[in-house]
């Protein structure tokens, strides 16, 4: 009798052990935080300057509309200690200010400025296409493939 009832119940509500909540691949319920978007952007940013050396971790991203961050982390082969350096490039009226640890700052020019312009442009174009699925020139959404 118990088996019959169990079978009837199973037919009515299904077998609880067989229930699976399958999330769509696009994860519509997942809210992307600014931090997560920054990480996605930075994955692209890190690769703009060529291969990251073994044992290094690099991040390059746009923090806000006037600030770009370069972060590099590695293990010193001699001391085996973890090293890290953060460089901030800030847009100012007078130019692009490079700020490094130890209160070192200077307005960049020449090749470094040219390279930064190129890097930010590549970052903008690639992040627009691959993270935001947007045409970098028109601002229109790209068709989803």
């Amino acid at each position, binding site marked *: 009798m118990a088996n019959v009832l169990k079978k009837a119940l199973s037919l009515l509500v299904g077998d609880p052990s067989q229930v699976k909540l399958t999330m769509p691949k696009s994860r519509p319920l997942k809210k*992307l935080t600014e931090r997560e978007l920054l990480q996605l952007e930075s994955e692209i940013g890190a690769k703009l300057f060529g291969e990251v050396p073994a044992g290094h971790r690099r991040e390059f991203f746009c923090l806000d509309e006037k600030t770009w961050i370069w972060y590099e982390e590695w293990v010193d082969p001699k001391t085996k200690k973890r090293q890290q350096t953060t460089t901030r490039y800030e847009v100012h009226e007078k130019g*692009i200010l490079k700020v490094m640890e130890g209160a070192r700052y200077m307005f960049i020019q020449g090749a470094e400025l040219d390279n930064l*312009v190129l890097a930010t442009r590549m970052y903008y174009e690639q*992040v627009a296409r691959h993270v935001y699925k947007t045409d970098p020139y028109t601002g229109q959404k790209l068709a989803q493939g």
Partner: protein
Amino acid sequence: MKSNENYPFNPEVGQPAELTDGTWADFQKGNPNQKPLDKARQNEALAREAVAAAKEKEQPDPKEFIHSFGRGIIRMRVIKQQETLEHDSRSWDTFEPTR
């Protein structure tokens, strides 16, 4: 004057600026009685040509480039976050667990 052909061309409106006062029209017709341009007008024309040449040669400011890329990124980031929020609220309205 470098070239009489361009004087007194007004780049703002794309036509000779002094067409109405007869000077330019007379000049085009080759009026032999046309008086030579006075010194002030010559200087004005030279200044205009110099400004136009400088504008052509002017390179975009690198910091403006970098700033504009930053602005573009932030704009897309904000739009993406707004889209995600809208998508979330719509999804909850129609959400049904899948068996």
